[in-house]
């Protein structure tokens, strides 16, 4: 039998050979091993090639606007803390258009997992530079090549004291699956930035290139030290893959919302509206 989280009879609109396929497989395997109740799972995404991923899962999803997955995800979790919320989107979506939400979602620390397909390019719009594109990368817009420092999502997240920060690679399915499982099990905002090859528009950062420029971190690494994790996150030749940083001591967004302060996590839609509360409030206005 197939994976119950996989949508059947759906045509996948990615190019043959695209790294997104590997990520999809890995996510499906992780979900299976985690055996999360399917009905309680919600995928949230923006717009882009990677952001189409939820369309290929047999779950609920919120496929919103380019760059705007994170605020929606925080509110979904806030409206119903019993849901498992996983965001899946692209590097342009998350770090370009969505950059401000990325920063503040880390601060907010909702209990959500954020999987970013980092292919260092804008795939869906046909190959412009993304915030993670490497210097020298030329495109029809960056005709003289990218000159900016690429954004290092892990370093950025650690600087913001994110509660879980990991880097993975689409080619390393086994390792990536374990990371995703840890991320989903982690309570709080968990970032999994996954290198992925765009075979159509990124002729530099290919499957082979990612293979050659990454390594899986040794077992002994301690992800609890922020300054060390930062240093580690800056390593670029080759890049370490694995869980870079964990901070378990952060308050979680939805637990701090008024409806849940008393530890009752009944979803909002199941709570009855009490007109007596309105009357009480009006009474204070006399």
């Amino acid at each position, binding site marked *: 039998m197939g994976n119950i989280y996989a949508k059947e009879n*759906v045509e996948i*609109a990615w190019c043959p050979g695209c790294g997104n396929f590997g990520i999809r497989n890995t996510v499906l395997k992780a979900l299976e091993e985690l055996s999360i109740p399917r*009905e*309680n*799972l*919600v995928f*949230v995404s923006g*717009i882009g090639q990677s952001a*189409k991923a939820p*369309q290929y899962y*047999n*779950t*609920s*999803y*919120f*496929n*919103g*606007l380019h760059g*705007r997955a*994170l*605020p*929606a*995800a*925080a*509110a*979904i*979790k*806030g*409206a*119903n803390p*019993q*849901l498992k919320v996983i965001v899946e989107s692209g590097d342009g979506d998350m770090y370009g258009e969505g950059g*401000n*939400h990325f*920063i*503040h979602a880390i601060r*907010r620390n909702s209990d959500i997992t954020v999987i970013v397909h980092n292919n260092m390019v804008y795939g869906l719009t046909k190959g412009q530079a993304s915030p993670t594109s490497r210097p020298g990368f030329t495109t029809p817009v960056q005709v003289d090549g990218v000159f900016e420092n690429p954004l290092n999502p892990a370093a950025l997240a650690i600087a913001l004291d994110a509660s879980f920060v990991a880097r993975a690679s689409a080619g390393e399915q086994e390792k990536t699956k374990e990371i995703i499982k840890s991320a989903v099990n982690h309570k709080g905002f968990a970032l999994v930035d996954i290198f992925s090859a765009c075979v159509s528009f990124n002729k530099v950062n290919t499957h082979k290139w990612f293979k050659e420029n990454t390594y899986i971190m040794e077992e002994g690494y301690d992800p609890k030290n922020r300054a060390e994790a930062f240093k580690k996150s800056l390593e670029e030749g080759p890049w370490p893959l694995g869980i870079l940083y964990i901070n378990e001591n952060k308050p979680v*967004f*939805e637990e701090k*919302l*008024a*409806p*849940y*302060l008393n530890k009752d996590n009944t*979803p*909002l*839609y*199941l*709570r*009855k*509206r009490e*007109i007596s*509360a*309105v*009357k*009480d*409030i*009006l009474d204070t*206005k*006399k």
Partner: protein
Amino acid sequence: MKKTAVESNAKKDVSIVLSGEAGQGIQSIETILIKIIKQSGYNIFATKEYMSRVRGGVNATMLRVAHDRAAAPVDRTDIFIPLEKEALARYAYRLDKNTIIAGDAGLLQDARVNDIAFGKIAEALGNPLFSSMVAAGAACGIIGIGKETADRLIKNLFGRKGEETVNGNIKAFAAGYEEGARTALKNDFKVRIEKNIKIQDELMLSGADAVAIGAIAGGCNAAFAYPMTPGTSVFTALAEHSHKAGIAVEQAEDEIAAINMALGAWYAGARAMVSTSGGGFDLMTEGVSLAGMTETPVVIHLAQRPGPATGYPTRTEQGDLNLALHAGHGDFARVILAPGNTLQAFELAQKAFDTADKYQAPVFIMTDQYFVDTYYNIPEFDIKENSKQNYIVETDAAYKRYALAKGGISPRGVPGFGTGNVCFDSDEHDEDGKITEDLSGIGLKMKEKRAKKFALLKESAIKPALYGDKKYKTLFICWGSVLNTALEALKISGLKGAAVLHFTQVYPLHKTAADIIKKAKKAVIIENNQTAQFAGLIKKETGIGIKNKILRYDGLAFSADGLAKEMAKIAAKAKKKGGR
């Protein structure tokens, strides 16, 4: 007018203007006065206009104490209490020879001033902080109100600060009152307003309170906003009540986040609202379009202030109607409500959630700075519960979020409630919420399904309300916050054969709107903006062009007496021109 003067020279309606720097104490004088006046059994109305700064500048609060409920600003100032010299200059246009100006003559250096040196009196009583109470006492003294209730109220207000504070304040009030009474006598200033003890138990709601509490009555259980005057006050009120009403409140990093949070929350079953002003709303427009495409309910409180850009952050205007009408790319339906008084604000805010949920469409509540900051007593009212808690269905495996349901509204499930997948999609999609490019097939059907909401929402539109002579020849048309002022202005003007047509729903227009307007010999639009945006909408929707316009766009709300003059003028012009 003459008649009244003959009957009695005692006023039944007094306006008091307090003016001074931000942070100088107007706010506390206002708070005390309002409490005392209302608890003494008199109708009270308060509105403010203030500069965009935390300290300094010149602000003003106008209060009205009236026998009949008076709920609109007037230019006429019976009592003016300036706390600094600049106030006299800035509000010179409000003063006439009948205005009693009371304050510290030494400070104000103006021959018209009746000297009541609040500060010095307070100091004499041992604490300069009492000066607000002296001023409140003086105001009460001039109108001869509140002496009997003051002591008790001051005890309530300051009880926890200790006896000394209480006694000091009681003395301060009494001292001020005495000076006030003396001033009234000297100026032959007489007031006769009957006491109505029931007023004590009435509600004092600002526009912001009314929208926020109405929203709670409508089931609002999530609120997202980025601070922006004058939208913030509704958000703050929701935060204030968040424990009592179980509201998930989050200050977003920006307005884009706020609207996307609201959509996420509705998707997951909450009833969410955002509150903002024009510039912040600009940033929400893509989210509004997303609501349209995904048929997700959402309630947007849009509190207007003068634009473009930063404009006047703390002033008022009705300049964002065109924006609200057309925000968001592509074609999709929406509803725009605009309360004219606090009761309507409560009821419309409540209704907004039901309408949004039922029709799966964005619903706007449009107010403005004047409206949210203004408050007055209103009788307690019945709260009509919506018949349904929500319109959410339990899903099964066959569930399709965008099913081509008859009537055009696909039943809305939420994730986790039932076994079905609830697939929300920003792209054009099929019934399942899957991306489609089946242009002439399901794609077209979806477009047509969504378009049905235009008709559905039109059918359920709220009828505009007609006030005044049902056999009107002259019809004054307005929307939103202008209602009370227009009604009082009509009364003041004494115009015959005239009526006010007020829209609490500005879009879609109720189907009778055109006929009501056509019945008038002369239609006049009254708007608090520069280009008569609502008149533009009426023309677009009905073809009726309204040439007569009374527009105010200096950042202030209309005053009833000022507007009355404009009404009379435009009515007179009509006679000359068109004849009758």
